[in-house]
């Protein structure tokens, strides 16, 4: 039987702010446990939360960037449950009236057609601390550095129809939030976290199947894989004529499978109610309009501009604008070397490959836009060949040294000295009489082989065009 897959995602994103949501502790990573804590975020008796207006601004920007309707008056509520990482025994969140609702994000579906994913709500809440287990494993300890860090939770409607769509939604969401400077959205560092709800129903049926909730996915790929795994698992159960159990499952990266955490039957009653210690969050229409106007150029607009302004192929523009950082990098390169398509080729090709194999993001890259400009100018000025340029890029990327210095230090300057090259050409002609004969006999391809030989002799440093010219001249002359 054919089944229709129904997926909804809940994404938590840490907001980029100087301080925490309700106190003045720094909102930044620190290794020492419980360093960024104070009586307020530790929930000591007598302390009161004080709302960070910067967090409200970022949440407003996030809501607008996700095309949400904005609540001019929203509230903070308490979500009550016990867990050691939650100092107060409740989480301050927006349950009844979130700051943003009824938004959407457009993605491509599996057929490449545009698809609108509805976003039910965007709300502000505080993060919890972290449980740390002692090395001996005999006790659990709590680090409250993260407790009180501002988050927005972004909840989609169950509009996603496949793991691929889920992944594309996440990529798009990440790009949008990065563009809007709401969050750095680093899943591996926990500044973006994703839970997925998934159910299957027979195609054509309107009755929703029982859903399961997936947790503990540490990358977009893991989200995709866990969903694929869960589809298979649920399908098997349904095909046996059985019912899927509504439960929370933990994705186990190692075994590539899902493990039951707790049954939904024991689900909590969070007893949400308005927090009496926090006044409503008021926004004016003017503030909203201002935030809307201040939204930066998003990926799509930027891609369109790249095509129009720089004459880039649509494909290139799409790849380069996938993250704000990459697009910024590209445009910075243009300041130093204004040939967009050439820059695009190098950024998308060699540089991306190096980043991938090093597991780095563009902002962690030591090969600056200035270096890129320097490198491309050297190619253009024939100081190095394209082939050597790749070697230079690799060395410069790894060492952080300027490409000019690399070329100088490693002696990679292209050999364009005619007398030096003539000697080499003569040597190659003498050593390869067959190829010379072949060329004379009309096999033009043979010249390529001979050029290659010269290049090999010079470890790629010879100016290939010049070598070609010399060879043709010499072989032709002697014949």
């Amino acid at each position, binding site marked *: 039987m054919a089944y229709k897959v129904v997926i909804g995602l809940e994404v938590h994103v840490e907001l980029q702010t100087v301080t925490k949501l309700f106190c003045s502790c720094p909102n930044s990573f620190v290794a020492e446990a419980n360093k960024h804590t104070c009586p307020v975020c530790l929930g000591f*008796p007598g302390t009161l939360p004080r709302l960070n207006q910067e967090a409200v601004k970022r949440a407003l920007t996030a809501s607008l960037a996700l095309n949400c309707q904005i609540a001019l008056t929203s509230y903070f509520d308490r979500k009550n449950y016990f867990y050691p990482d939650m100092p107060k025994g409740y989480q301050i969140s927006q349950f009844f009236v979130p700051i943003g609702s009824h938004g959407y994000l457009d993605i491509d579906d599996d057929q490449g057609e545009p698809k609108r994913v509805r976003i039910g709500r965007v709300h502000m809440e505080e993060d919890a601390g972290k449980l740390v287990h002692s090395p001996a494993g005999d006790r659990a300890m709590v680090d409250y550095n993260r407790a009180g860090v501002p988050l927005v939770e972004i909840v989609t409607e169950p509009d996603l129809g496949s793991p691929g769509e889920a992944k594309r939604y996440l990529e798009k969401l990440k790009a949008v939030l990065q563009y809007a400077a709401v969050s750095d959205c680093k899943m591996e560092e926990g500044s973006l976290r994703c839970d997925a709800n998934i159910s299957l129903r027979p195609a054509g049926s309107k009755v929703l199947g029982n859903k399961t909730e997936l947790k503990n996915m540490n990358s977009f790929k893991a989200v995709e894989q866990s969903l694929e795994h869960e589809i298979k698992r649920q399908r098997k159960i349904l095909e046996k004529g059985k019912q899927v159990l509504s439960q929370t499952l933990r994705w186990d990266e190692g075994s590539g499978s899902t493990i039951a955490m707790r049954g939904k039957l024991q689900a909590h009653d969070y007893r949400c*109610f308005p927090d009496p210690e926090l006044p409503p969050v008021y926004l004016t229409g003017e503030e909203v309009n201002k935030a809307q106007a201040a939204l930066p150029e998003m990926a799509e607009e930027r891609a369109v501009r790249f095509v129009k302004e720089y004459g880039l192929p649509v494909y290139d523009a799409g790849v380069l604008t996938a993250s704000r950082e990459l697009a910024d990098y590209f445009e910075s390169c243009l300041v130093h070397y204004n040939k967009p398509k050439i820059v695009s080729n190098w950024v998308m090709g060699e540089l991306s490959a190096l980043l991938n194999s090093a597991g780095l993001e563009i902002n962690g890259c030591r090969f600056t836009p200035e270096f890129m400009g320097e490198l491309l100018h050297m190619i253009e000025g024939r100081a190095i060949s394209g082939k050597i340029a790749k070697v230079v890029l690799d060395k410069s990327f790894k060492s952080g040294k300027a490409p000019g210095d690399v070329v100088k230090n490693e002696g990679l300057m292209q050999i364009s000295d005619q007398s030096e090259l003539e000697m080499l050409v003569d040597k190659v002609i003498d050593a390869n009489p067959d190829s010379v004969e072949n060329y004379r006999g009309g096999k033009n391809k043979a010249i390529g082989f001979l050029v290659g030989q010269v290049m090999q002799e010079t470890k790629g440093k010879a100016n290939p065009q010049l070598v070609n010219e010399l060879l043709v001249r010499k072989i032709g002359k002697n014949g």
Partner: protein
Amino acid sequence: MKVTEINALRVAEAVNNREVSASSLIEEVIEHCKGLDNKVFSCLATEMALEQAAAVDRKIKSGFNLPLAGVPLVIADDFSFRGMPLALASSALQNYHPPLNAASVEKIVGAGAVVVGKTAVGDMGLDTVAGKSEGGTFFKELLYKVRSGAAIAASCGCILSLENDSSGMTRQSASRCGIFSLRPTPGRVSRYGLNLRSGSFDYPGFVATHLDDLAVLLQASTGYDERDIMTAVNSIQRDKYIHNSNPKEITIGFCSSLTGFLDEEPAAAYEKMYLHCRENGFKTVDLTLDILPEALRAFYVVAFAETSSTLSRFDGIRFGMAVDSDDLEEYYFKTRRLTFGDEACRRSIFGTYLLSENSYERYYKKAINILNRTRQVFAEVLDQCDLLLFPLFKSVSPPDHLNFIQSYEEDIFTAPVNMAGLPSLAFPGGVQLITEPFGEEKLLALGEYFKTAAEETTRESKEGEV
């Protein structure tokens, strides 16, 4: 000069004029406190108080003039203050020494007052019963009649005290002790450092043996505090509240229908105060307020709900007693069962029920609607008068505190006022004066007219007893 027999203003004057040193005064007060029932105080700040007093003396010597110089201050254990444990009569806070000062206390101390100790509160601060006394007969009697350690301490020679006036128990108790109490408008004084059980209602209340001293306390403690966003209201212009103090131009509201709720004695006192207003030339108007019973129930629904949530932080993880357990759920069960007293358990259980999925709409939501209506009803009543003369309690002696329902019912005249967020000034003899938000200065100025009448009323009733 015997500090325990005069008022704070006079003490400050004497210390500022260097007639007497703060150190010797505070030493005297501490000795006096040691002689009081040991259940009244949860701790005395002997050394710290003497150090503070010496610091005040040094300041005076270098030319400072402090409005509360050398005045002893007693704070209920509801307030955090460095150097003294916050015990809340529960092992959930075992060995907890707060790393913060309550903003209100800090400000009053900044005006020269010296914290001499903390009065005990019951079970997580939910109960102001000062413990089951085994002390002298005087205190046995007082503790039977009065639920507030702060009121007892102030009336027994400590002059000034602060306590969480959540439901009005502090005002009732002060009145029963024959002294005065003020609950300011929420926002005038910072709540930072006051242990909140119910954020909607908990608020610092002032107790003093002399009416004048309440004005000094308010002045010393009011103002904007960035740690309590509610105090932002202090920056609004309050000029419009500058009032006329000519009785002939002032209307006093009175609710004659309420006397039916009162025992004979408080009813007589309430009526007498009304007559006193007329004799002094005030205009009077008879008003009705039918919402009280409903408001009281709503008050307790909201208070229970909020308290159940607020007490969740006492989970044995960061402070307090810890039990041995391999299982997290069991850990919570055990710790909370061992550290929570009867009242804390009651409010946690009822509050949890009131907020649960099936009762949220039926109880909590409804209570919030009543709360909003109560505010409106009081606002309408205050549109018709400048001051509202109101009873404080139904009977002179409170019901046995073990009967908790009756105890809650005792708050019928105070809890709704707190819900409405109105300032209230309590007098001896069981009456309070209420006015519109931020009208404290008006209350305190016009309170002088009522002071004598109130004191006469209590004297007569005491003589009647003899």
